[in-house]
């Protein structure tokens, strides 16, 4: 393999690579460009396949045919891109219908799982809040019970004190009368 044919193969390969890269795009115009590039690259490769000796008529005939076909295809695709632009204002190639269905389903599933996590978080919050309030209520009830107990104890104490105080008053009265008596007895003649 001499340098000239290596150059041909290299050029062809590079053109095909660039063309294939363009074919990955979503815009029809880019796709047409990719098609033309890759088509020309392949034509160069056919030329390389024929060798560089005396002109190979067959390769030239094949390349000419391929060029004509690519030309017609490009023209038709450009017309299509233009029509697409007329109708939709862009020249983008649409995604596959099944792909769209699948991606819609995936989107729905995403939304659903978002909803699920949100609901779970909300439930956890509410549960925590409930737990907290229950604890709080428990504490309050405890406090209330303590307070009542204390009040009752205080009331009991009060009652006890007052009862005792009555007793004491009574006693005091008794003793007072006694002392009065005693005093009167003592003061008496």
């Amino acid at each position: 393999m001499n340098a000239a044919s290596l150059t041909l193969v290299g050029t062809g390969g590079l053109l095909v690579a660039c063309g294939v890269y363009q074919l990955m795009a979503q815009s029809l115009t880019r796709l047409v460009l990719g098609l033309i590039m890759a088509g020309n690259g392949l034509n160069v490769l056919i030329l390389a396949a024929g060798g560089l000796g005396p002109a190979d008529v067959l390769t030239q005939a094949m390349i000419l045919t391929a060029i004509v076909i690519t030309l017609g295809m490009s023209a038709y695709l450009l017309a299509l891109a233009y029509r697409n632009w007329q109708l939709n204002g862009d020249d983008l190639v649409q995604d596959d219908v099944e792909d769209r269905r699948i991606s819609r389903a995936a989107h729905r599933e995403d939304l659903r799982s978002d909803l699920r996590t949100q609901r779970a978080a909300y439930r956890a919050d509410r549960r925590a809040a409930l737990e907290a309030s229950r604890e709080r209520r428990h504490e309050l009830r405890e406090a209330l019970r303590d307070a009542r107990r204390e009040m009752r104890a205080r009331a009991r104490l009060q009652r006890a004190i007052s009862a005792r105080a009555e007793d004491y008053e009574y006693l005091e009265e008794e003793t007072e009368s006694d002392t009065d008596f005693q005093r009167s007895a003592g003061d008496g003649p």
Partner: protein
Amino acid sequence: MKALVPLPVLLPLFAVGIKFLLGPRHLRVQTFISLTVLVADTVISSILLVEADRHGPIVVQVGSFPAPLGISLVVDRFSGLMLAVSSIVTLCVLVYSLSQRSADENEDEAGAPLAVFYPTYLVLAAGIADSFLAGDLFNLYVGFEVMLTASYVLMTIGGTDARIRHGAVYIMVGAASSLLFVAAIAVAYAACGTVNLADLAVRLAAITPAARLAVQVLLITVFAVKAAVFPLSAWLPDSYPTAPAPVTAVFAGLLTKVGVYSLIRTQTLLFPHDRQAPLLYTVAALSMIIGILGAVAQADLKRLLSFTLVSHVGFLVLGLAIGSARALSGALFYAITHITVQTSLFLVTGLIERREGTADFGRLAGLARLAPVLGLLFFVPAMNLAGIPPLSGFLAKLALLQAAAADGGVGAYIQLAAMLLTSLLTLYAMTKVWARAFWRAPGEGLGKERERQIVLPGSSAVAVIRSTVGDARGIGGRRISTSESYPAGMLGATIALILLSLAYTVWAGPIAEFTQRAANELLDPNSYINAVHAAVGGAH
């Protein structure tokens, strides 16, 4: 006899020239030309088929140029069979589309699309015939391109939004696969110095296995895209349903089969000893299962049928993968059955659309009572597709099942399971359509008109909004005018194709014997190679 061989390609192309000379007027002359050409095509193909069966392959060197420069056209039993069946199918679909055109009154106003439709249709027929006749790889490429370019025009005819959007995908996939085809030709030419199939068959045996494998894998990939074999099939169900009914019908019947034909032709002729059986087995099984699962998930009749198409191409590839005479014979029988059945199913779908304005079977209901003719016309090919005995689909599948069982081994049993499961699921999908569109009580579906009741805000009044949801469009891209009567041509063409598929059942014996002979011929490439070399010698 040799003079007849190029005619299936030349006649339609000449007719197209005359049509363009005539211009858009002279509607009757135009119609007459189209019909005459396709009838002549059918007659010529039948004669060629009989001759090829009696006297072996007929080879013509176009223009009497010697082999490396001249183009060989070859009719052997396989290509003759495909040629004959395809010309009958194209003729029937032409009659159907002519009738649909005259039934859609508003279509004639569209003008331009229809002036393009019929010439393009003839170009399509020429391209298909050229692909079947091609005796060298580059002519096969040209045949494909003629066919595909015509199909691009038919796919986007009328230029409606949906057709442009989906047509763009179809065209890009077609163009990319054509690029790969050119690459395959370049590699084959670099390795062997010829593109003539017979010469290639001789010289490929002499080159290194690695280079041979490169050519083989490239060719398999190219034809797998055209035939919509599973990993490369996503484009098909997406683009076919948006085209007009007759276009979808002829595409579904013939275009993928041209891919399958080329796959079988190149694999048996060029690589008789090392066909990539494990690869073909795998993609065939995946095609069948995934395709039919896709069909089961659909709600639109056209999309469902497109998915069954992907699925049933798997059967044909499987026949090639097994590779025995019995398997190939079964595959050929199934190919012609499937062409006819799939086309007639799409034509019936077109009739349903004509009556109801839609093919969405969520909206259809009660057709069995409202239109019993449609019910019958749908039922017979649907059962044939599912492989219900005694129809020809069953006989062909039986041959494939027997071939797989005779092949033995674990792989063969997986194939058996895949085939049976696919047939069962096909039956399920067809039953689903039947139960929804045909068997429900009339009015249970959403119907032609969608009624929506809206409570007006601020009052108790109820507004009923009626909207016609018929989404089916005619050839020129306008909405089709629905009617309860069936145009005679549409009905007649559909019935003719269904009768053809029934004829395969009645004459299954002779046809099976013929496909057996064709399969034997395919398995012995020498008869093909010798015939071509003899003709080339004669041309010197």
